[in-house]
């Protein structure tokens, strides 16, 4: 499994989009990681969101599809109004069950599923937001041996979610959005390297 892709999970709520737009342009185009973004939002912005993120990076950006295999160098967006799960065989599953933390997709659901399923290295990043979603997921990621990272609350548009995470979950790093791309590049390495 030495060439198995790394997994980068990014969760954000209110204000999270701004942080994602900040970090995307500096991601290495040869990134040896699959990136999964779970962002709380209204469903009708779906196609707009993919386009919005696509113009900020040379990596491919697409909505995660049912049974699709996670590949390095691709940024996957959790579709609106479904939970996004990750299977042990590195494919996605969708789930239309009850909202979690008033949210679907829920960051906790994706983070916890990844913690259970992913056998390679992973890092989870929690961004700006106004609720508790993602805090439990960060704990699961940590317990599974992954790296946890939270946006510096002083730099977040809405600091509640990152502050909750720092209080309630084991957090390895606290960084402003502008320093996250360097962390991700360093963590994942490049496909060629």
């Amino acid at each position: 499994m030495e060439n198995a892709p790394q997994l980068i999970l990014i969760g954000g709520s209110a204000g999270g989009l701004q942080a994602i737009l900040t970090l995307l342009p500096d991601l290495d185009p040869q990134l040896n990681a699959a990136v999964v973004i779970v962002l709380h939002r209204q469903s009708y912005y779906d196609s707009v969101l993919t386009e919005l993120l696509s113009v900020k990076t040379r990596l491919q950006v697409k909505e995660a599809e049912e049974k699709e295999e996670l590949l390095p160098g691709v940024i996957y967006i959790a579709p609106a109004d479904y939970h996004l799960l990750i299977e042990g065989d590195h494919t996605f599953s969708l789930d239309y069950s009850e909202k979690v933390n008033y949210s679907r997709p829920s960051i906790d659901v994706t983070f916890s599923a990844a913690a259970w399923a992913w056998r390679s290295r992973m890092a989870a990043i929690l961004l700006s937001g106004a609720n508790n979603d993602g805090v439990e997921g960060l704990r699961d990621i940590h317990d599974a041996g992954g790296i946890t990272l939270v946006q510096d609350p002083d730099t977040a548009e809405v600091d509640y979610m990152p502050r909750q995470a720092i209080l309630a979950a084991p957090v390895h790093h606290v960084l402003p959005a502008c320093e996250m791309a360097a962390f991700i590049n360093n963590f994942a390495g490049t496909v060629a390297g």
Partner: protein
Amino acid sequence: MHVSEPEVHMLLNDVLERYGYDFTGYAPASIHRRVNHLFQADRFPSFAEFRYRVMTDPEYAIRFVEEITVNVTEMFRDPHFYATLRQEVLPVLATYPLIRIWHAGCSTGEEVYSMAILLKEANLLHKSVIYATDINTSVLERGRKGIFPISQMQQYSRNYMEAGGLHDFSSYYTANYEYAKFRKDLGGKIIFSPHNLVTDGSFNEFQLIVCRNVLIYFNKTLQDKVLRLFCDSLEPLGFLALGSKETLNFTSVSTKFRQLDNREKIWRKNHL
């Protein structure tokens, strides 16, 4: 405390052998999550006690099956989908003397009542029979009553209007304190009946099968098996409607269907 992957596997095998419910073809991540959720919600001190309860208490086994399957649904979910049914599918169904529709995995029946309303407004309900099936008998019982939480009606009314609804949505139900009871004439053409997509076979031939957000819980092998069941249960030129993130592409029956031109998740079975 946590139920591990091998323990979940063990439990599913128990349930299959003891009760005949086969969850071994379900996508593991969702099952794992829901089994753990139930384990924690019911406060079992250990996996052994959890397993013992499932194995020895048939009533609890029913709860187990209900809780590890997803029963979330709503009326007129994805209004564009219903608008397409109204505009493209119902006019074709109208040409048949008797319309047979199967809602597979209907849960508490919100989508089935949505369909009944569409048929009513197209003046087709009187010559329709809708079979609504699910693995869980208790959700079917709720569907049979046609009683849904009043708190949802505002959202459903919005969906209904977006789907091209012709009337005042509230004319379809009588409101109580907490519940909305849907009109008897809507439910009169619906037959709620248990059916397990994993183990039960075809029971009729239909012109339309609706199965939305059910296949996402199955692994690829089981998806293919269920899609073959649907294919065998459809008349030539019959319609198959799936959820907004589901597809027939890359499945064992893809060559037997053609998707409608507007890219909604509705496929039409070929003539031969």
